[in-house]
């Protein structure tokens, strides 16, 4: 019971992006995933990518509010990592080894697929922001991602007043939305 409540607390922490919770989950599961990847034609770098991807899947899952703890975090992370790595190997059109199941796995295909879709959207956004160029990129990131006030931003970027900064931000936002919605619709249409 204690272990279960611990797991629950960890997941709640993870949903809040609590640094401590992230660290504990990371520490307790990373080596397991690394052995899995390395024993199946992967490198340490691959292991890091796959594990962090699995952590994101878990993160998105707990944030969606629909995640029910019907297995251990360890089992879930292992299952997702295994699934992700198999997909990666297939994408590289490499020989897919018959991965032995060191642990029980749970069905994660849907979660992984959902994560892939969300990731696709995020990558669209990242690409859109990236294509704006400076100062638009930094300006929009400061306002929308870092949630800074226009006064702070004006000070930081050297605008004489917040109104000027707001004016600049607006121009940038219009551009970004244009690019984003074009790609977003395009992506969804093809989707």
């Amino acid at each position, binding site marked *: 019971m204690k272990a279960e409540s611990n797991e629950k607390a960890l997941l709640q922490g993870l949903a809040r*992006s609590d*640094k401590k919770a*992230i*660290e504990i989950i*990371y*520490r307790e599961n*990373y*080596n397991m995933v*690394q052995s899995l990847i*390395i*024993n*199946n*034609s*992967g*490198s*340490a770098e691959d*292991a*890091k990518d796959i594990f*962090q991807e699995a*952590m*994101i899947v878990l*993160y998105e899952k707990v*944030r969606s509010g629909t995640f029910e703890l019907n297995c251990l975090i360890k089992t879930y992370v292992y299952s997702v990592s295994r699934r992700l790595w198999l997909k990666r190997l297939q994408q590289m059109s*490499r*020989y897919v080894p018959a991965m032995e199941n060191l642990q029980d796995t749970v069905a994660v295909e849907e979660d992984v697929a959902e994560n892939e879709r*969300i990731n696709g*959207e*995020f990558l669209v*956004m*990242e690409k859109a922001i990236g294509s704006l160029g400076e100062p638009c990129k930094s300006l929009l990131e400061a306002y*929308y*991602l*870092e949630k800074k006030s226009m006064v702070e931003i004006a000070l930081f970027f050297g605008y004489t007043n917040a109104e000027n900064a*707001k*004016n600049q931000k*607006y121009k940038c*936002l219009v551009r970004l*939305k244009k690019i*984003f*919605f074009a790609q*977003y619709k395009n992506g969804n249409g093809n989707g």
Partner: protein
Amino acid sequence: MDDIKILDTVERYIRGEMTPDERLYFEQLRKTNPEIDQLVVEHTLFLQQMNRFGEWKKFKQSLHETHIDLTQQGKIHSDKLRGGAKVVYLWNKYKRVTAIAASIAGITAIGLTILVNSLAPHAKDPKMQELVRQVNVLERNQKVLDNKINYVDKKSQQQPVISTPVRYNGTGFLIDAKGLMITNAHVVKNSRNIFVQNNKGDQFKAFVVKLDVARDVAIIKIDDESFKSFASLPYSFKKATSDIAEPIFTLGYPRDEVVYGEGYLSAKTGYNGDTLSCQISIAANPGNSGGPIFNHNGEVIGILSAKETEAEGTVFAVQSKYIYQVLEELRKSSLYENVKLSTKSALSGLDKVQQVKKIQDFVFMVKGD
């Protein structure tokens, strides 16, 4: 400027930063103005996406930081792959390549074998047949030989008793007045009966006292009642090695009569540098072997032993000092303890004809069957 204001208002609305009155007014505006409504929906979606994107980025960033922290703290083993892990990693990374390489090697080997097998027979077959033919020829020859052997066997069975012909013929000479003789081992070693015959044609029975096959020297003793001992030997035996170019002569029985031959000492050592032999140049025939080699003083300097087949006129002789060695051993036995070699020649100063006249009675033909 209006657009900016509108967007700003929409953002404030979405974020819930409006006062209740403001909010009521704005919702009224949304209902009446489709464009504003559209903008709100669109911007809501955009802002949601931006927020999630921001959190996603932040989470990724914190994962990255956590990874670095934990690696530095040594709580996870990343980046630095050590020892076994590295080997496992490398093996896993390259095992497919290795497998493919091995397969290729295997296929190549098999392919080459097939290729060689399919191409080679054209070149190989005639040889093989040749070999078989040779084997057949050999078999036939073997059969012929078998037949011949059978024929000879039958013949020998039909005539079991035949007069034993003289198979070995050589020369020997007395080393002591009582009938001890020296000759070549090859003359007597395979003989059941040994006879010695002097210049007048008298035969005496003899037996082997000592045989040195390696040196090809044999000591035999005349054992016959009709043999009368001599008072003394006219010649002596030289202990020292003779000098090169010293004139020498020999007496022997290449035929039924004693034959004289002369020559010179060619080298102080024998075949392959053998110091107990010497090389002489003399006209020698098979019957001469075992004959004495004399110097001009009538001293025995050696025993004629072998002729080199490849070089004409090259004859080897066992040096006389060897006779001393043999007798030394012989004296250990009580029968021959009194045997002594004469060291004083009675022939020095005499001319060759006189010397030979005196010597020839002491040189015998040795016959074995």
